[in-house]
C-alpha cells in the first residue's frame, strides 16, 4: 500500500515540472517569433537582426504612408462587410438546416466545403467564376464575394451549435403566449442566438482581415488589402522595418478585435445559460 502510494507521489512529482515545461515550450514556439517581431518594430536601426535602441519612427512612417492607410481602410471596410453579410446569410442557413429534411446531410457537408478546399484553389476558382464568367470587376465587390464564401461556413457552424442547444420549448412558450412566427423569431430566437451570431461575425471579420491568398487573386488596381500589400512588399523588398511595424500593428489589431468580441459574447452567453 505504502509503495503504491510512493510510486503515485513520484509520478505526480515528475508531472509537476514536465507539464509546465511543455506548456512553456509550446507557447514559446507559438509566440516567440511574434514577440521578436514586435520588439524589432521598435528598433532604432534599419537592421532586422540587431537591436540598437528604442524608437517609434517606423510607426510614424507608417502613418504617413498614403498607400498603407488606403489599404487599411479597404481592409477594415471589407472585413466589416464580410462579417455582416456572412452573419446574415450564415444565420439563415443555420436556421434552414435546423429541421430535418431530405438531403440535409448533403447540404451541411456542402456548406463546410470551403473549410477543406485549399485556399489557392478557392482563389483561382473564384477568379474564374466571379470575374471571367460572371463579369464582376476585380476589387471590392469580388473581394467581398470571395471573403463571404470562405467565412460563411464558420458562421453556420457556430450558429448551428447554438441552435442545437436551444430548448425548443422556448419557441413553443412564445407561441403559447401569443407570439406569431415573426414575433417569435424577433423576440426569442434572435436574442438567444445573438452570442453565436456575434461570435461567427467576429470570426468572419478576422478571417477576412487576415486573408492573403484569395485576396491576392481578386484585388484590382489600387484596391489592395493590407495583408496583400505586406506580402507584396516583403517579397519584393525583403523584411524591412516598415513591414515589421505594419505586421505588428495587424497582429495587435486582430487580437484586440477577437478578444473583445469573444469577451462580449461570452458575457452574453453566460447570462443566457442559467
Amino acid at each position, binding site marked *: 500500500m505504502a509503495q503504491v502510494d510512493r510510486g503515485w507521489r513520484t509520478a505526480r512529482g515528475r508531472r509537476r515540472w514536465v507539464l509546465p515545461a511543455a506548456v512553456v515550450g509550446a507557447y514559446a514556439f507559438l509566440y516567440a517569433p511574434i514577440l521578436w517581431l514586435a520588439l524589432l518594430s521598435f528598433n532604432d536601426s534599419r537592421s532586422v537582426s540587431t537591436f540598437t535602441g528604442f524608437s517609434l519612427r517606423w510607426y510614424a512612417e507608417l502613418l504617413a504612408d498614403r498607400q498603407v492607410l488606403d489599404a487599411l481602410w479597404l481592409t477594415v471596410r471589407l472585413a466589416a462587410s464580410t462579417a455582416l453579410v456572412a452573419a446574415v446569410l450564415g444565420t439563415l442557413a443555420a436556421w434552414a438546416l435546423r429541421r430535418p429534411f431530405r438531403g440535409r446531410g448533403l447540404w451541411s457537408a456542402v456548406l463546410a466545403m470551403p473549410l477543406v478546399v485549399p485556399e489557392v484553389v478557392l482563389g483561382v476558382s473564384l477568379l474564374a467564376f466571379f470575374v471571367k464568367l460572371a463579369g464582376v470587376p476585380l476589387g471590392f465587390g469580388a473581394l467581398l464575394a470571395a471573403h463571404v464564401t470562405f467565412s460563411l461556413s464558420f458562421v453556420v457552424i457556430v450558429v448551428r451549435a447554438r441552435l442545437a442547444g436551444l430548448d425548443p420549448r*422556448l419557441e*413553443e*412558450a412564445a407561441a*403559447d403566449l*401569443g407570439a406569431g412566427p415573426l414575433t417569435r423569431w424577433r423576440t426569442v430566437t434572435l436574442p438567444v442566438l*445573438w452570442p453565436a451570431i456575434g461570435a461567427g461575425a467576429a470570426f468572419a471579420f478576422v478571417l477576412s482581415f487576415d486573408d492573403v491568398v484569395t485576396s491576392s487573386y481578386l484585388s484590382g488596381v489600387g484596391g489592395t488589402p493590407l495583408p496583400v500589400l505586406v506580402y507584396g512588399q516583403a517579397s519584393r523588398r525583403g523584411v524591412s522595418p516598415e513591414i515589421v511595424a505594419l505586421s505588428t500593428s495587424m497582429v495587435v489589431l486582430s487580437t484586440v478585435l477577437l478578444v473583445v468580441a469573444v469577451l462580449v459574447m461570452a458575457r452574453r452567453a453566460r*447570462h443566457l445559460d442559467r
Partner: protein
Amino acid sequence: MSEEPRETPARVQRVPEPSGVPAVELRGVTRSYADQVAVRELSLRVGEGEFFSVLGPSGSGKTTLLRMVAGFEDPDGGAILLGGRDVVGVPAYRRDVNTVFQSYALFPHLSVWDNVAYGLRRLGLRRAELRTRVGDYLELVQLAGYGRRRPHQLSGGQQQRVAIARALARRPRVLLLDEPLAALDAQLRAQLRVELTRIQREVGTTFLYVTHDQEEALVLSHRLAVLRAGRVEQVGTPADVYERPASRFVAEFIRSSTTGGSNVLEGTVRTVTTAGDVATVEVAVGEGSVLAELPPNRALRRGQPVAVAVRPEKARLYAGEDAGPPSGWSRVPVRLRDTVYTGAATEHLVEVVGAPGALLTVFTQNTRRAGEAEPGGGPVLAGWEPRFSVLLDDDPSGDASSEPSGAARPPAAETGLTPGSAPDPVGVTARSDVR
C-alpha cells in the same frame, strides 16, 4: 419567496358546479407517430373551473394530449373543443390556453418581470395596465420584488413559479400544466403542490394537469383521468379512482409507493349469495376466502377466475392468538414476508398461504411506539370487510389490445363511479366499447 410553511385555509376537494359548456372537451381524438399510436379515440370533458389531472405512466399519451390542446400538435382525427369551439387547426398563439412546461422554458434573455409581461405585450397591454397586471401575478406566486432578476438567478422552484405567473397572467380559459413539479426535489414538490392548490382556488381558472405521479394527482385534483396506452381507463374523483378502481390497470398503477404491492389477488368464484338486494360473491384465493359485494350489473359463474383488489389500509392483520376477523369478512391465511417502517405507518408484505406469488401489502398505523409489543408470533390471518373488496375485470395480461367482452366490463363511466345514476353531464365518456 417565503420558504417557511404558511398557513393555508382548509382545502375542500369539491368538484365545481358544472356549467353548461365544458372548458375543454375532446371527442374521439386520435394521434399517432410513425407506426405508434399515442392517443386513440380519446374523449374527455373538463368542467369550467375544475382542477383536472391526467394521470398515466410514461408513454400513455398524456403529454401528447396536452400538446394537442395547447396547439403544438394537431390530432389525426377527432375534435378538440375549448369553450365549445373546435380549435383543431388553430395555431397555438391564437388559442385561449397557456402552458406551464416541465422545463419551465423561461426566456433566458429576459428578466422575470419581462417574462411575465411577454404574453401581456402580445395582448397589447401597455404602461400602467401592464405594470399592474405583472405585479399582481408576481404577487400571486409570491415573487414580488424578484422582477429584475434573470431566470438563471432563481432556484428551480422560483423559476417554476415565474412560469406559472407568466402563463396565468394572460388569464387563459384553461391553464395546461405538463408535469410542472417533476424536475423539483421532494420537499419543494410538496410545497409547490400546496401552492398550486391555493393559486387555482384564488384564480378559479380551469387547470388541466398532466402527471405520472399518482400521489400528485390524488392530492391536487377535483377529478382525474387515468390514461393507459392512449385511452382513458377511468375518470372520477380521487376517492373514486383510489377506492373503486375500474380496472386492474388502475388498481395496479395507483399503489403503495414503498413496498410496491399491487394488492390484486387472483382466485376463483366459489359461491354467489344474495341477501336482500345485496349480492355477495365468495372468491377462493389459496387457502383463504375473499368476500366481495357484487355490482348489480355484473354476473359471475361458479368456478370462474376473477381478480380482487383491496387497498392496503383497508385490510387488517391478525396474530395467532387473536380471534381473527369477524364472520362475514374476508379471511385469508398469510405468512409475513417483509416489514417496512415508514414513520406514520408500518407496511407489512404478506404472502397468501396456498397461493404462491399472491402478495398483499397491509398498512398498520403506528399508534404505538416502534419496538413496543408486536402481537406475538406475527400475523397469520388477513381480513377485511366485503365492501372494501374491488372485483376487477378479467384483463390479466395487461395488454391494451385485449378488449374484454361488454358483459364482463361495462363502460368505465358506469362502473361504480356513480352507481345507478346517469353519468355526470361534465363527466366522461370513456370509450371502452368493442371496436
